[in-house]
């Protein structure tokens, strides 16, 4: 068994682990990223690329997302065009009066929270996106909604981090975390022991397994999202698109189960359309199902009938790390010194990657993060129970 050492070990080379590594190296800290498969092998490589703000709950969630979105312009400069960042703006499509009323309220709250977003009429929606059918009454429009290539972003963050001195240990699962006197001492893979005082759990839907190795209970559940990919086409869509129902379903599992889930839709820079997504609790099963993929197709067609003749060439499923309150779990864990959480972003991992990376890096470097970690800490769940 090899013995080695590191200042910081990050478990997981998804977009969150990669972002933390990237922001750490900017502070001169050189972490070791440990990944059991390849970078972006989990949810970061099985999602769409919407950096959406309209889908965030007004309040803490939205503030965090806006802070993250601000950093994407800079990331695009530093990482280059390969991450395919496009500030394309986004439309949240409204199909009926109930949705209109609900979205109207949410837009007012989002505007109060600092998000530039407005309600636009159906004709205006069709002027912006000619393929939208008459079914759509109105839409929320935010110029801050954007698109990025999620796995290109992950790879680019890692590449920049490695250029800054980070190391990547691929193909090695973390199988043990050694602790003594209430603090982290080392992590073990089948091949080596790495003495390390700080371990960041950025294992996404697998964060509970990593937590258990340190005796930390992590309330994250895998929530499966199935997506369809069509053949590439010349530009058909100009914005990131989601249906108002889709946002509602995110915060309401009852609605998700009922099938009234809406959809998300984008055209990637490659020309492929990505259509999502189911939200199912199906354990760690990453298969797609007839039911799931047909349901997604059925939802998008009435709104985009012109897409009926597009061939679907691929489907995939990712496991979103779901938390009970819809917010990620970030920062130190009270019961285990040196063990930090950075997981539980559910479907927001790409959008929140930049701010998550920066917050964790600042905390590790001993600075106070520009956005407070406190509301995102693991202990909020035990407090809630006690209350």
């Amino acid at each position, binding site marked *: 068994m090899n013995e080695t050492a590191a200042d910081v070990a990050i478990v997981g080379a998804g977009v969150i682990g990669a972002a933390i590594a990237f922001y750490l190296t900017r502070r001169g800290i050189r972490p070791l990223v440990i990944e059991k*498969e*390849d*970078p*972006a*092998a989990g949810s970061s*490589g099985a999602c769409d690329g919407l950096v959406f703000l309209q889908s965030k709950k007004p309040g803490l969630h939205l503030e965090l997302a806006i802070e993250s979105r601000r950093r994407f312009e800079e990331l695009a400069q530093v990482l280059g065009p390969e991450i395919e960042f496009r500030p394309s703006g986004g439309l949240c499509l409204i199909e009926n009066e109930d949705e209109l009323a609900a979205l109207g309220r949410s837009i007012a709250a989002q505007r109060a929270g600092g998000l530039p977003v407005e309600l636009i009429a159906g004709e205006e929606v069709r002027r912006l996106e000619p393929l939208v059918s008459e079914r759509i009454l109105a839409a929320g429009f935010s110029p801050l909604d954007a698109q990025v290539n999620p*796995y290109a972003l992950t*790879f680019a963050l*890692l*590449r920049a981090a*490695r250029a800054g001195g980070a190391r*990547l240990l*691929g*193909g090695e699962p973390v199988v043990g975390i050694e602790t003594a006197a209430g603090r982290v001492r080392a992590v073990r893979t089948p091949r080596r022991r790495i003495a390390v005082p700080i371990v960041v759990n950025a294992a996404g839907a697998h964060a509970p397994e990593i937590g258990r190795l340190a005796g930390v209970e992590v309330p994250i559940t895998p929530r499966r999202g199935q997506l*369809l*990919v*069509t*053949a*590439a086409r010349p530009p058909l869509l100009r914005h990131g698109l989601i249906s108002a129902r889709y946002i509602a379903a995110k915060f309401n599992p009852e609605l998700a189960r009922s099938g009234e889930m809406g959809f998300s839709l984008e055209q990637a820079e*490659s020309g*492929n359309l990505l*259509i999502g997504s189911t939200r199912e609790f199906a354990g760690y099963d990453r*298969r*797609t*199902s*007839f039911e799931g*993929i*047909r349901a997604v*197709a*059925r*939802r*998008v*067609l009435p709104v985009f009938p012109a*897409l*009926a*003749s*597009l*061939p*679907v*060439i*691929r*489907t*995939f*499923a990712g496991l979103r790390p779901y938390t009970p309150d819809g917010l990620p779990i970030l920062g130190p864990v009270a019961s285990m010194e040196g063990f930090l959480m950075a997981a539980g972003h559910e479907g927001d991992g790409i959008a929140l990657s930049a701010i998550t990376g920066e917050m964790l890096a600042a905390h590790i470097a001993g600075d106070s993060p520009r956005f407070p970690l406190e509301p995102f800490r693991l202990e909020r769940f035990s407090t809630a129970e006690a209350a």
Partner: protein
Amino acid sequence: MAAERFEIAIAGGGPAGIACAAVLAQAGVPGLLIDEHPRLGGPGLRDAAGAFSPFAPAWARTVRAIRSLKKEALTVLPRTGLIGIEPGPRLLLAPEEGGLREIACRRLVIATGARERFLPFPGWTLPGVIATGAVQMLLKQGILPAADFVVGGAGPFLLAVAADIVRRGGRVRALANESRLADLLPPPGLLAGQGVKILDGLLRTLRVLVSGTRIAHGTRLLEARGAGRLQAVVTARVDKSGRHLPGTERVVPAALLAMGFGFTANIEPAQLAGCPLFFEDTLGGWLVQTDESLRTGVEGIYAAGEVTGVGGAEKSLLEGRLAGLAILEEMGRLDAAGRGEITRLQRKRKALLSFGRWFNRPSRFAAACRTNWFASLPDELTICRCEEVRLRDIRRTLAAGCRTPAGIKKATRCGMGVCQGNTCKGILQEVVAALTGGPPGGFPPPSVRAPLRPVDLGLLGGDTV
């Protein structure tokens, strides 16, 4: 959604599927046979009317069997794409006339055959470079696609294709087979009882030689050259460690290059159904694991033909029949004679597997040879045509810390195009194994999800018919 129910569904109307359907239909078991093509037979025997196949007698037997089927027992769905398989088993089908069909069955036989295996070399994507199987298919339809050919690649199939070209009046300027002659000669044990095949092989060789074709073994397709389309093929001898020998290059003018590097099994439907796989390079790579009665590791699912080991039509015919009999036995509908036949077929199957190993081995170069070959290929070589991924991209991604074909696929888009990776996903596996010094088969085959064939969004979201 209510699915139509069948006792048995057979995916694939090649020799294995047909032989299986024949057994079951004769016993009066209601079954469903689906195939993508309008005519049954699979690419090997579909157009066997021209009958230059030594398997024609067996084929004719099967066709007769199909004709004699009780019509009410067997439903044949040609021109029908298999889109997905789910536990049950349940099948999602896309008939050519439109709509989607959902089928539930008690038992499923996966007999989805094999496709050609390609290895990349400079110029392999030029117009005028086509698969040996495609050339053979054209010839069977009476089409001679060019006057001057080069046939190249590896394995014994090249000779058969060259003979067919010559027979149809084409000229084969060179047959460049990277396999060595010694590897192409069948071992004596394999020859026993194979009179027809030996005779067939000798006749083909003679025909090619008499036509003036230069047959070169241990000779590689170094480059396909041409401005906009193929004009010449550069060949060169290789040493035993897979390095090409400088000074042995030859430039052969040709209008068409028929290339092939053996075959690879169409395991994707079985993978989707969750069937455990195994890797045996000399049987065609990744294959479906079965017991002696061709039961896969998934309850109710059988595999027959090339998917259990690439071995040709005779093996497929046998396995189709064997699977059919095994199903009847499970259903309690087999007499003693039938059980005796199962035993006989199981024994004969072993010999046909040996034939398969001989057939595939010459195209499966040693790991060291592959490493030397792929290491020598230029950076700008195209690996994935659909997404224009070059060898350079793969080398860079490996250097950037990706280790597996699955990771490289995500990082480079290799295999993400409209062909669903059917051409290049095998190549990517081989390239990554070779460049990382790993063994062939060191990586699991890339995961498979529905749709197995592209399907229109409107169909997917529409009602079943």
